[in-house]
């Protein structure tokens, strides 16, 4: 394969170079204009390592009307991703080697990003009996991240055993932290507003108490824990405390929890219904700070596509979730880069290196040095664009940003040395 030259690109916003790619690797940082090979114009644009998402719902098998591995991969590529973890709450649930291999093969066939299936922690996400964790780890999909996402692994004994068991193959339990009894019928963040709107509250303590329990369990057993979609200031505090104690815990935050607040629920538009719910402005600030100082390790989309009818209804009947793959980087630029909370190296760490390390994703998150795998996201940080659900690649349109002007446009993406996106379109 001939060499590709990303001409005039600025790695992490630094001085322009020609990034030369061959055989799926970055082979040279040549002087700008001097690289040899097939040229892709990237003059003045910023190069980041290909983004890695720890948390997406690709809905296949079972809900192909909302998303497929192919359409989800397309959305991911257009969002600058080169690897995506596909959550296990499909139908059938990804709780066997057979299902995770099926999802993995669908990802291979789509060929746009590394699709990394997440295995369920318990059979059927029911929280009682461990799923065949070892078989999923040993399968062609080589699962390393296990999660009952959508459900909390609530039983403390099951959680303890799972944390311990996956150590045999360097796995991690990614917990959806939601105390089930405290959130029965919960519809939105418990706040003054939930009381006024008459919507059952989802209190912050229901998240924080599970995280507190889990970090103590992880510390006690010497296991690795990952906390999904941290949404409250208190959760950030608990994780900060745990890390200071040397507990092996990592955490992710979604783009929407970095920018949207529960005030949006006032109009009862189910586009803003998500789990965990949108929180207060104070929570948003604490999450940004936590992401900036590294308490929160990664941004993960929790991309949750839903067919139109699941949102075209009254609030309580609507499904939880919003799509996010195609807007994630823009939201991080708006909330973290522009205010000076993260530089481009920081973005590369939180959206590529850290999630790849947490998920043990080989060939991803290696940065942009010579010798790294050629997974590259080229972004124009100055370009602004208006989010239009009809123009998105995702099969579903439940974006909370419709009509909103967002900064930062993904221009080109290389996945394993091959262009998947050129000039903002699928290659």
């Amino acid at each position: 394969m001939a060499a590709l030259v990303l001409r005039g690109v600025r790695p992490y916003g630094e001085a322009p170079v020609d990034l030369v790619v061959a055989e799926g690797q970055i082979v040279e940082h040549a002087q700008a204009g001097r690289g040899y090979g097939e040229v892709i114009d990237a003059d003045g644009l910023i190069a980041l390592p290909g983004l890695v998402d720890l948390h997406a719902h690709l809905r296949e098998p079972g809900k192909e009307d909302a998303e497929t591995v192919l359409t989800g991969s397309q959305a991911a590529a257009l969002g600058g991703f080169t690897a995506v973890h596909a959550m296990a709450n499909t139908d059938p649930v990804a709780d066997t080697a057979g299902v995770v291999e099926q999802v993995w093969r669908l990802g291979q066939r789509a060929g746009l990003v590394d699709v990394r299936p997440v295995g369920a922690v318990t059979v059927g996400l029911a929280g009682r009996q461990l799923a065949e964790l070892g078989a999923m780890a040993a399968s062609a999909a080589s699962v390393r991240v296990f999660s009952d996402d959508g459900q909390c692994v609530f039983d403390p004994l099951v959680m303890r055993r799972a944390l311990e068991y996956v150590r045999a193959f360097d796995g991690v339990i990614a917990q959806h932290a939601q105390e089930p009894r405290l959130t029965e019928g919960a519809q939105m963040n418990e706040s003054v507003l939930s009381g006024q709107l008459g919507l059952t509250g989802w209190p912050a303590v229901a998240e924080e108490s599970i995280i507190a329990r889990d970090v103590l369990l992880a510390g006690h057993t010497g296991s690795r824990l990952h906390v999904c979609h941290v949404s409250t200031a208190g959760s950030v505090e608990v994780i900060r405390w745990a890390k200071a104690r040397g507990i092996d815990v990592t955490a992710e935050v979604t783009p929407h929890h970095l920018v949207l607040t529960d005030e949006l629920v006032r109009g009862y538009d189910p586009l803003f219904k998500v789990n965990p719910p949108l929180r207060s402005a104070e929570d948003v600030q604490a999450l940004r700070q936590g992401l900036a100082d590294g308490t929160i390790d990664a941004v993960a989309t929790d991309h949750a596509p839903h067919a139109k009818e699941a949102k075209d209804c009254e609030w309580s009947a609507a499904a939880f979730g919003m799509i996010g793959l195609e807007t994630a980087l823009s939201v991080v630029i708006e909330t973290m880069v522009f205010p000076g909370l993260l530089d481009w190296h920081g973005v590369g760490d939180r959206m590529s290196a850290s999630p790849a390390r947490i998920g043990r994703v080989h060939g991803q998150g290696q940065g942009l040095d010579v010798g790294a795998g050629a997974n590259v996201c080229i972004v124009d940080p100055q370009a602004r664009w208006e989010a239009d659900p009809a123009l998105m690649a995702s099969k579903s349109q439940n974006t909370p940003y419709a009509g909103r002007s967002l900064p930062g446009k993904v221009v080109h993406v290389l996945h394993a040395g091959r262009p998947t996106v050129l000039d903002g379109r699928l290659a």
Partner: protein
Amino acid sequence: MRHLLSAADLGHDEAVMVMDTASQFGSIADRTVKKLPTLRGRTVVNLFYEDSTRTRISFELAAKRLSADVINFAAKGSSVAKGESLKDTALTLEAMGADAVVIRHGSSGAPHRLAHAGWISGSVINAGDGTHEHPTQALLDAYTMRKALCGGKGDLAGLRVAIVGDILHSRVARSNVLLLRTLGADVTLVAPPTLLPHGVQAWPCRTSMHLDDVLGEVDAIMMLRVQSERMQDSYFPTAHEYSQRYGLDASRLARLADRAIVLHPGPMNRGMEISAVVADSGRAVMVDQVTNGVIVRMAVLYLLLGARGPRDVRPDADMPVSA
């Protein structure tokens, strides 16, 4: 005003105007000829997702007394259940030419959604949504208090009102707090802490955990229905303990000021939040509440629909209010 979704939709003057209009209808209702031609040719749909015969009949009577055509649409479930979705039902009602949809729904915000999702062009009247609001109930309560305690005119400035019981799950309480405050009354919510909503401190009212502390200082006391099943969810230990601490019985009734009245939105749970002796006493105004419910709803329908041409389909065109 185009819709009535929340008691907060009504400003002071609008709320007084609704009551004044109701008062005029009240004098008509006392006559033998009870029908007015005001809404002839208009279609009012009662879209009820919850069984509430008393509220539906009240709206039905109100619409018929204004000569509107009334369609009762008893819907079941929601888009998650087997039934037709709210959207499809709305589109059907729109195609049938509904000028107003009176909706009762178990989901908080469903009337808001119906009014603003672009599915229908008519007016939406919230007849109770989930644990959110029930604005016409608040209007009839305010009307009843005004008639009994304020000479039947003006607002409720300075009136002291206690609302007692399951505030957390009560749409009646939410609408009453908003409307009574708008009309100048001082409201105290009385409940065990488990049945007060999170963040109630931010509401425009006082709260108390002790019924006995407020009895002597109120002009009107509204007892809310409390379901004894709430004890299964640990809101209180037993029905007996609840009624001991928060129920209105004869001895507590005796401690109310002489002119104070007792309201209840119904249906009553006799022996739980209110004793039979109190419910049947001369201080209880539940029968007046029912009577006033009809004329208040007539006023709401009249003010929302009366000044608009039939099937004014301008989306979100605000109707100038006039009596």
